[in-house]
């Protein structure tokens, strides 16, 4: 029999707040974190819309010699992970005495790469790039930095699965624990917010250009959606075997009961219906639950015309007559990409633990596909004990997680 895998800690740093409490309040109030940034227009962006968040100031918390190797997104990941470990009541002594692993979702470090290349072209002397650049520029910048900072001694790996990276990191961490290879794994996802990381994404006309109304730009499932808004930050969850949690007297928040995944085997950017459907079905099958037990679905829906429509079709096909509330928290955060799979677990957990479902902002008019779903445009005060979270990415990678409340 597979071992049970539970969540014992969470941490978040996003445009909705710098910690769990602030983010929970923003979710409850249906607050948007989207702004218009004129500096993006000066760089030639088609859309100046972005999520807004400050880079945490870690001077005085981490030494210069620790910070110099950290790319922008590592700062968010550090903040989220420090909060998650504290939330899980895991301290330094525990970490050095146990083989705690780290699986973090990340799929770019473009800001650091751009800075290095600019210096190289300008100075024509690689020494001038500095000692931190190589460690900031690699895709594994978060897992390498956090493992050294927190003295983690288990698996140490970055998961790159486009916009499903954070979700896959949690799913894969669960598999390692189920298999008995790890007792506790720090899982998460992070996303850089600098313009260099998403200029090429803007270039393929994927972003909303509703610049006059930033808070209305991200409108998943709405008939008049015109593209996504890029976001970022980091989210971390501490997952461990149920036995490990009980042994150390941890508060068990929830259990990850299902992980489904699939690949579309189709187009590089255009999602289909079959791939997400199979991911959903696999997660439900693996969880061994009646689909009517699912009280809330946190959709991947990014506010793109085709993506939202195909996800709506997949959800409608799989859920049939059962109509749980379905929302996309991206209506508040924009698309947090590599981070989204992890952050949306944290957002959903906060809602489940506090008995509400945050609104799907800007859902004013359904289209043919979204009209078949139960999408609340305002907050719903409702207790639910099981949710499903979807994350899909470029290349047709899909991930679905099912989480059950533990009271």
């Amino acid at each position: 029999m597979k071992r049970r895998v539970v969540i014992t800690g969470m941490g978040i740093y996003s445009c909705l707040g710098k910690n769990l409490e602030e983010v929970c309040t923003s979710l409850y109030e249906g607050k948007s974190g989207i702004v218009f940034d004129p500096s993006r227009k000066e760089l030639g962006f088609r859309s100046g819309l972005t999520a807004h968040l400050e880079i945490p100031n870690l001077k005085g918390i981490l030494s210069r010699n620790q910070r110099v190797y950290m790319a922008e997104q590592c700062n968010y990941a550090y903040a989220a992970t420090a909060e998650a470990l504290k939330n899980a009541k895991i301290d330094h002594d525990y970490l050095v005495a146990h083989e705690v692993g780290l699986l973090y979702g990340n799929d770019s470090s473009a800001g650091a790469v751009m800075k290095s290349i600019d210096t190289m072209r300008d100075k024509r002397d690689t020494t001038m790039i500095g000692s931190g650049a190589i460690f900031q520029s690699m895709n594994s910048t978060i897992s390498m930095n956090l493992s050294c900072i927190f003295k983690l001694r288990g698996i140490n790996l970055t998961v790159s699965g486009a916009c499903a990276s954070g979700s896959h990191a949690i799913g894969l961490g669960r598999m390692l624990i189920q298999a008995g290879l790890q007792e506790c794994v720090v899982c998460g996802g992070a996303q850089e917010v600098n313009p260099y990381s998403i200029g090429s994404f803007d270039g393929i006309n994927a972003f909303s250009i509703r610049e006059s109304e930033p808070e209305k730009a991200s409108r998943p499932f709405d008939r008049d959606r015109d593209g996504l808004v890029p976001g970022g930050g980091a989210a971390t969850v501490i997952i461990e075997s149920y036995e490990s949690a009980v042994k150390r007297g941890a508060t068990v928040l929830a259990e990850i009961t299902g992980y489904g995944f699939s690949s579309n085997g189709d187009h590089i950017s255009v999602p289909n219906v079959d791939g997400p459907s199979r991911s959903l079905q696999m997660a439900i099958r693996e969880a061994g639950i009646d689909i009517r037990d699912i009280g809330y679905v946190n959709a991947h829906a990014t506010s793109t015309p085709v993506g939202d429509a195909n996800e709506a079709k997949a959800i409608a096909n799989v859920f049939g007559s059962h109509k749980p509330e379905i929302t996309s928290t991206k209506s508040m955060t924009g698309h947090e990409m590599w981070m989204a799979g992890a952050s949306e677990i944290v957002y959903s957990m906060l809602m489940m633990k506090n008995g509400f479902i945050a609104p799907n902002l800007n859902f004013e008019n359904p289209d043919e596909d979204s009209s078949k779903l139960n999408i609340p445009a305002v907050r719903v005060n409702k207790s639910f004990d099981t949710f499903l979270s979807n994350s899909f990415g470029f290349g047709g990678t899909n991930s679905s997680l099912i989480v059950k409340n533990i009271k």
Partner: protein
Amino acid sequence: MEKTKLIDRVNEALAEEFEIEISTLVPDANIKETLDIDSLGLVDMVALVESLFGIKIQAHEMTGILTFENLYDYICNNIK
């Protein structure tokens, strides 16, 4: 440039970059121990000197630069 002014300029830059008290930068002190850096951190010191004075300390020359006095002398001898 006078050596005392050069020393002040180097110390000020090192203290800011490596986040240490400027009073710890005394001529006889060991560079790596004082700045709390390893060989990677030395790369940043070399880059700092290059950006300040246009002098590139070659990797093999670092074996002779152990103290701040060694560093000041190197810069004085190579500054144009």
